[in-house]
Each structure stands twice: as structure tokens, then as C-alpha cells.
């Protein structure tokens, strides 16, 4: 038997800033038969907690990651192997296991955020993976490219994945002259031009979904498919209490209840998530840009544009994913896409369905893209 039949389960890396994670509990027991996609254990980072899924099948032979213990990214937590592999071979494998060297420099180099100068100013993005199909992730109002931390790495295993910070968000330029969906869609196309991306599968969350639709309508040749996650641009209502609260909150205590509205499982809103959002919000001009954006796309407390029909008419295939417990944009808005798109409304998920149902979301995206 060779080592290659022994598969390692390691501490995952969710997002660029994750360097370690804590084993909260094991969801599978030693000796259990594991299929690809089964949830093996729960891991908690400073940002968020989520389940680690199996990427190999076999028997969960040995668990070495202890509960309530923090391990660096890539550290071995368990091994999966067929029953044909003997216990002594597993022992030998574990005995010879060398933990990955802590290579922060090299790691940072490989995974670093990148910056590019566009007509509007400097824009931050991240690129993951190579080859396969090309995906571009567009976050929503007040978000940034780290909103995709549970999606980009999985999809980058087979594809080329880009995620961008919209103007006024994350670490991109803090000005926005044209805050309309047309203006934001123009920005997306300029970003694609600058990186020589002829066409891409656009994945948009919330406002990013509306931007993806607008782009498919105005430039269908540049858009292979669109995936709309908790998307805006499908109906009238928008939770303005959330939008105004997010813009107006200045402290951790003020913003927390608003961020909790984003999730079905409110306990996901942790200290690090709040701190990261405040770090971005506290940059000069961010509040002004967000106000200007909200006053444009959500003018008078309603969504300014409904794009479902036009997006469907563009001929670009549409996948829509929504959480039943979305308190920001009602799941009922996806009704308008029935018969014109592949629509999936998932239970136990809020507005951040791509985080709360990352496994299902990643599978749907993977099957949808061209």
C-alpha cells in the first residue's frame, strides 16, 4: 500500500487572512464511512465557524485534531483511507508526518490581494486558481471580497476565480461618481478589460447580483452565466432599516444587531467579523459613498430597478439562490424568475446564504457555469 491511499484532512484556509483555526467538534466518528461532501468537523476561526467537508471518500481511520485546540492552516487533523490499508500503515504514516513549515512570507506572496489602477481609481481584487472556467465574484452593499471566503477556494480547485472590491468598499478607491447599476456595471466591465477577461461567469451577492444582471443585459457577450445570491434587482422591497443602520453605526455595539440580521444563525457574527467591517467603514469617505449609493440604488426606500425579465431575455443562463430567512431582501422576489432561471430557495439560511449554505452554493455554481 502506498501513502497515496491515505488521504489527509487538514485545517482549511478560509479567506486570505486565516492563519489558524480551532477544532470545535467532530461531526464524524473514527471508523465512519465517508463520502465526498460529508461534514467531518466544525472549525471556528476568529471570523466565523463552519463545517469542514470531505473531499475524498473512504473510512475515517484516525482523528488527531483535538477538540478545543487551535491548529495552523494545513495542519493534519485526521486521515481517511480504505479498509484495505492496515492500522500499522496508518501508524507509520502518522509517525512520519511532518507538519507544514510556517512559511508566512511565501504564503502571503502566493495568496496576496492585488491592486489595479482603473479610470475610477485603485481597485483591490484577489485571484485564486488557474485554468478551467473563469468566475468573477461581486459582493453586495457594504461588503467586500472576503464575503466569498467559503466559496472562492473550493471553486478555484478547478477554475480561475476573481473577486473584486467595488468602489467605496473594502480597500478599493473611496469615491463613486456614478452610483447607479449602470455605473457599477460599467465598473465591472472596466475591471474585466483591465485584466483581459473577455467573458466570465458572474456571481453576484445582493447588490452584486443586480450589477451582474445589468452587465448581462448591457453586454451579454461578456457574460457566460450569472448566479444571483440573495439578489437585489428582482423586486421592490429592501430592508432600509438594515441599510440605514449599517451606514449610521459607528461602534461595535451599534452595528452588531444589524449584522445579525444578515444571518439565519446570528451567532455567526463574531468579534473579528465586526472589527473587520468597522475597519473598512472607518476609512474616510466610506460613509458618504455608502449613503450616496443607497440614495441611488434604493431611492425612496425601494429598489430603483427590477431587472429579472430583461436579464432572462438577454439569453444569459441564470441561477438564483436565496435563503428562506433572508431579512434584507425577501426570498419571494425569486418568484419572478420561476420558469426563466434555475431557482433554489434554501431553508435555515439568511441573506448570507453563500456563507451559511456554502457547500450547496458551491455545488450549484459549479454545475451552472460554462
Amino acid at each position, binding site marked *: 500500500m502506498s501513502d497515496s491511499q491515505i488521504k489527509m484532512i487538514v485545517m482549511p484556509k478560509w479567506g486570505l487572512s486565516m492563519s489558524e483555526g480551532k477544532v470545535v467538534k467532530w461531526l464524524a466518528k473514527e471508523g465512519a464511512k465517508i463520502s465526498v461532501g460529508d461534514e467531518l468537523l466544525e472549525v471556528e476561526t476568529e471570523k466565523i465557524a463552519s463545517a469542514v467537508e470531505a473531499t475524498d471518500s473512504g473510512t475515517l481511520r484516525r482523528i488527531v485534531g483535538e477538540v478545543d485546540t487551535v491548529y495552523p492552516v494545513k495542519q493534519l487533523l485526521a486521515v481517511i483511507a480504505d479498509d484495505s490499508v492496515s492500522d500499522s500503515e496508518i501508524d507509520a504514516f502518522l509517525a512520519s508526518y511532518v507538519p507544514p513549515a510556517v512559511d508566512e512570507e511565501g504564503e502571503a506572496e502566493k495568496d496576496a490581494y492585488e*491592486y489595479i489602477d482603473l479610470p475610477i481609481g485603485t481597485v483591490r481584487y484577489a485571484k485564486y486558481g488557474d485554468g478551467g472556467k473563469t468566475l468573477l465574484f461581486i459582493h453586495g452593499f457594504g461588503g467586500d471580497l472576503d464575503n466569498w471566503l467559503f466559496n472562492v477556494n473550493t471553486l478555484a480547485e478547478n477554475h480561475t476565480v476573481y473577486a473584486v472590491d467595488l468602489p467605496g468598499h473594502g480597500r478599493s478607491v473611496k469615491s463613486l461618481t456614478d452610483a447607479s447599476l449602470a455605473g457599477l456595471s460599467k465598473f465591472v466591465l472596466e475591471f474585466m478589460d483591465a485584466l483581459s477577461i473577455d467573458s466570465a461567469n458572474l456571481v453576484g451577492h445582493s447588490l452584486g447580483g443586480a450589477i451582474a444582471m445589468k452587465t448581462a443585459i448591457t453586454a451579454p457577450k461578456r457574460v457566460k452565466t450569472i448566479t444571483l445570491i440573495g439578489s437585489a434587482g428582482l423586486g421592490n422591497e429592501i430592508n432600509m432599516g438594515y441599510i440605514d443602520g449599517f451606514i449610521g453605526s459607528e*461602534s461595535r455595539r451599534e452595528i452588531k444587531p444589524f449584522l445579525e440580521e444578515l444571518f439565519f444563525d446570528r451567532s455567526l457574527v463574531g468579534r473579528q467579523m465586526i472589527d473587520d467591517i468597522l*475597519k473598512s467603514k472607518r476609512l474616510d469617505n466610506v460613509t458618504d459613498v455608502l449613503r450616496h449609493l443607497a440614495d441611488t440604488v434604493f431611492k425612496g426606500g425601494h429598489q430603483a430597478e427590477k431587472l429579472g425579465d430583461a436579464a432572462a431575455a438577454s439569453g444569459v443562463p441564470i441561477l438564483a439562490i436565496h435563503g428562506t430567512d433572508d431579512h434584507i431582501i425577501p426570498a419571494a422576489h425569486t418568484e419572478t424568475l420561476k420558469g426563466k432561471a434555475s431557482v433554489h430557495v434554501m431553508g435555515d439560511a439568511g441573506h448570507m446564504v453563500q456563507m451559511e449554505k456554502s457547500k450547496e452554493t458551491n455545488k450549484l455554481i459549479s454545475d451552472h457555469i460554462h
Partner: protein
Amino acid sequence: MARILSMKDAINEALDLEMRRDPTVIIMGEDIAGGAGAQGEEDAWGGVLGVTKGLIGKYGAKRVMDTPLSESAYIGAAVGAAACGLRPVAELMFLDFMGVCFDQIFNQAAKFKYMFGGKAQTPVVIRGMVGGGFRAAAQHSQMLTPLFTHIPGLKVVCPSNAYDAKGLLIQSIRDNDPVIFCEHKNLYTHAVDVPAESYTIPFGEAAISREGKSATIVTYGLMVHRALEAAETLAKEKIDVEVIDLRTLSPIDLDTVIESVEKTGRLVAVDEANPRCSIASDVIASVMEHAFKAMKSAPRAVTAPHTPVPFSPTLEDLYIPSAAAIAEAVRGTMK
């Protein structure tokens, strides 16, 4: 692409950005001129440790005022200029020197808004070095934060890292009240990721530097790092410590402290200042008053002893609270 900046450079950047944004911002102090663009007698050190280096080349001698060695004169001038519409940032090389200009600070600047019925504003920042471990002896090593914190009308800031230093200094300059900005000299070279843009951190919001369930350490400045070091040691003993960095001492974020103690039931307050009437004693008193029922054991304070800072390196190292002493205090609360 992380942008790693030392606390010294982050403070320089905050001054630079605010001077660029707002022409009423001026800086003054002893030997603060110097660095790129300075010539002749203006080519001083750019601050005794180079914090203000290069600013005179960008903004000229009218806005970067190299003052005579007379703290009482130029701190008084800064307070007066603030009352008349400028936003001066005056560097008191070592905050230990406040003795010669304290009337200007506590009896004038701190009182104007109150005594003029809210009609006067004094947007002055007095910044300078605090703390020990620099082998600078008893008159240049003190942690005098409790003295400033005692005075109503002063805001008191003491950052533990470059990111906070930049955001809190920009907030201090934009604030309309007098701010004492305490920079720990042994943190000047400590570097973290700092955005290039301007940003502010509001006063009165503590940071939770580490989350934990078993005990709460409340501290600020250099001691945050010692507390985090202690927390790492204790984690191996399955003691899960929460570390709170107060960031601003006046106003103080008691809500975050009390919330944490209500969770852990155990409190260790760490202060590099002398023990009597210190930030540590103040935090402990407030928690006992508001969250006594949550306590599982008596709170503990880890501070410097009630003596001047020794010049002997061996004694100075013993004088400043160590990670080992902090860890031992936490163990004491676990019994």
C-alpha cells in the same frame, strides 16, 4: 498585500494626512523639524526619535514650529492657538515633562469649554512618549496616564499598535477637546498592517485583542502585548483568557469590560503605572461597583511598584509588569 508600518511611521503618516487635509493643523515642539527637505538650523532630528521627520519639508516652518526649550511657553501657545481656531499638535518630548506646563493643560485647556459656558473649543493635541524599558531613567520613563485621566475635560489616549495609533491620532486632531496622546516609546518599532488612507477610531471603544472564557485581563499600551503573551502561556494550561485593550482611558469603555467580566467572572487589571490611584485600581473599583455579582474570585491588579522607575537595567526589567507576573495573577484568580 499587507502594508506593514511601525507605530512611529503610522503617527508620522497621521500627522501628514491631517496637515494635508486641514490647513489649520500645525505641529510644534522641541527639535521636531528635520528630515527630508530641511536645511541649516531647521535640520534638527525630526523629533527626538524621528516621529516628525520630513514634515517641515512638506509644510514649512510656519506649520512645523521648532520651539525653544520652554514647555510652559509653547504648550501655553498651543492651547491659546487652539482656542483661537487652529488645531495644534504639540509634542511634549517626554510626557514626564508636563510638570513644567501642567497649569496650561489642566487648569486652562481642560477648563475652557466648561468655564466659558460651552462657547470655547480647545482642539489641541499634546502628544509625547510614555513608559519604561528604554533605559531612560526616572524622569523619562514614567507612565503618568492616571494623572491625565483624573482631570475632567481632558481626553486620554494610549494606543497599543500602529493601526490604532494612526486612527486614534486622526480622531484626536479632529476632536474639539484637548487630547493627551500617550505613545509608548517601546512600541515605536512595533509594526502591523496599516491602511494608506485616513481613518478614525472613535474614543471610548475598547478593543478585544483576544477572546476567552475563563478570565478577563484589562490593560492598555505596551502591557497589551505582555497580557497576550501571558494568555498564550495560560492557553497551554487550558486557561482561556480574554484580553481587553482600553485604547482610550478617558473616555473609558466600561461596557466592554463589564460584559467580559460578566462572562468570565474573573478580572486582572494590568497597568504600567504606579499602583495607587491607577487605571488598574480605577477599573477594579468600577467593576466591583457594577458587576460584583458576576465575580467568581477576588480581582487582582498587576502594576509597577510604588517607586520611581529605576535606571539599573536589571531593576527596570523587574519594575515593569512581566508576562510571567500577569500569568501568575490570572492563575491566582482561578483558584
